[in-house]
């Protein structure tokens, strides 16, 4: 009994960690004329995210590394960046899903003015968002003075486009937006779609008119980069196609 049942002490198994090389496109407007790549080696677990890698660099290696992040859990939409050539949220990209035998390339999103390292000026992006009136406009008072009632099917109609977190991953993945910064961009159209197809809203015609512009939905060339980039899985190109169709019908 004494010998047979001896079990090894419960030592938690050491979790394997990996040295991951990150190539980060750095830019300091006070010193650099051009952005340049800098590499960092970071010790990470498979379950760590790219955001954890950036934190380790900033906290342990180089405090000057600048990037935006707020909630760090895929809701605030602050840390959209180009990871290995694709727009992703750093907080939703796990190390185990990347090929760490090669360096992981991290750079700022494209098409918006670069301010520092991974930070871009989001103002043009939000200007387009504001321009489509992303708020409920209703001419009639709610029935019995309380709620504006909607059926399940009516709510379902625009459910996909309510998920947007305004991270700009879609807009800055769009080849049209890269070359023509005046284009409203996928995110603004998604947020217009959210209200155009809302049965409680009365301003669809105005929004369709705004987007029936030279720089509106007709700029879309259906490259589907936005749909691939969206961290919320919104079918962005489909939403844009639906807005195009609404425009041709003249009503949602």
């Amino acid at each position, binding site marked *: 009994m004494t010998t047979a049942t001896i079990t090894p002490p419960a030592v938690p198994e050491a979790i394997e960690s990996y040295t991951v090389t990150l190539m980060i496109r750095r830019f300091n407007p006070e010193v650099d004329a051009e952005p340049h790549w800098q590499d960092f080696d970071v010790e990470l677990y498979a379950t760590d995210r790219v955001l954890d890698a950036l934190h380790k660099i900033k906290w342990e290696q180089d405090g000057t590394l600048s990037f935006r992040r707020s909630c760090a859990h895929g809701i605030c939409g602050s840390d959209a960046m*180009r990871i290995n*050539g694709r727009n992703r949220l750093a907080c939703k990209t796990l190390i185990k899903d990347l090929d760490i035998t090669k360096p992981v390339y991290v750079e700022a999103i494209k098409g918006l003015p670069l301010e520092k390292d991974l930070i871009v000026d989001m103002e043009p992006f939000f200007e387009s968002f504001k321009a489509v009136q992303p708020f409920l406009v209703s001419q009639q008072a709610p029935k019995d003075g309380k709620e504006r009632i909607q059926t399940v099917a009516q709510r379902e109609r625009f459910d996909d486009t309510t998920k947007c977190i305004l991270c700009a991953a879609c807009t800055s993945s769009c080849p049209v937006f890269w070359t023509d910064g005046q284009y409203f961009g996928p995110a603004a159209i998604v947020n217009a779609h959210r209200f155009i197809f809302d049965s409680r809203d009365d301003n669809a015609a105005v929004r369709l008119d705004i987007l029936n512009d030279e720089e509106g939905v007709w700029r879309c060339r259906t490259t589907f980069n936005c749909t691939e980039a969206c961290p919320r899985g919104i079918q962005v*190109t489909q939403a844009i196609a639906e807005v195009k169709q609404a425009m041709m019908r003249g009503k949602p």
Partner: protein
Amino acid sequence: MPQQTAGTPTYQQKTTSRRPAGTLYRGREGMWSWVLHRITGVAIFFFLLVHILDTALVRVSPEAYNAVIGQYQTPIMGLGETALVAAIVFHAFNGIRIILIDFWNAKYQKVMFYVVIGLWVVTMLAFVPRHLTNVFNH
């Protein structure tokens, strides 16, 4: 995190890569179909431009027209015609794909892209051998 791994990451000061430009955006089927559509579209435009000019030449002088058309019979032009047909066939099939995306359903865009490639391959397999025999045997 074990102390020995946390404490000493290899720290490199300003090891600047020689590649200052950003990486190429790694779009998927949709982006590459658009790139091909644009390239073939521009190529077809320039062909049409030249084609209108050489056809208009017959109004200037039939001899000059014949001389120019005679140049088109060379094998190099024959290969160029192959490229032209390849571009037009892709542009045509992908154009149908884009119409279907806009008016039918965007969900099947990837499948449709491979269907376009498949139809393109089939069309070219039917065209190229026959065309090249004509070009190099006559």
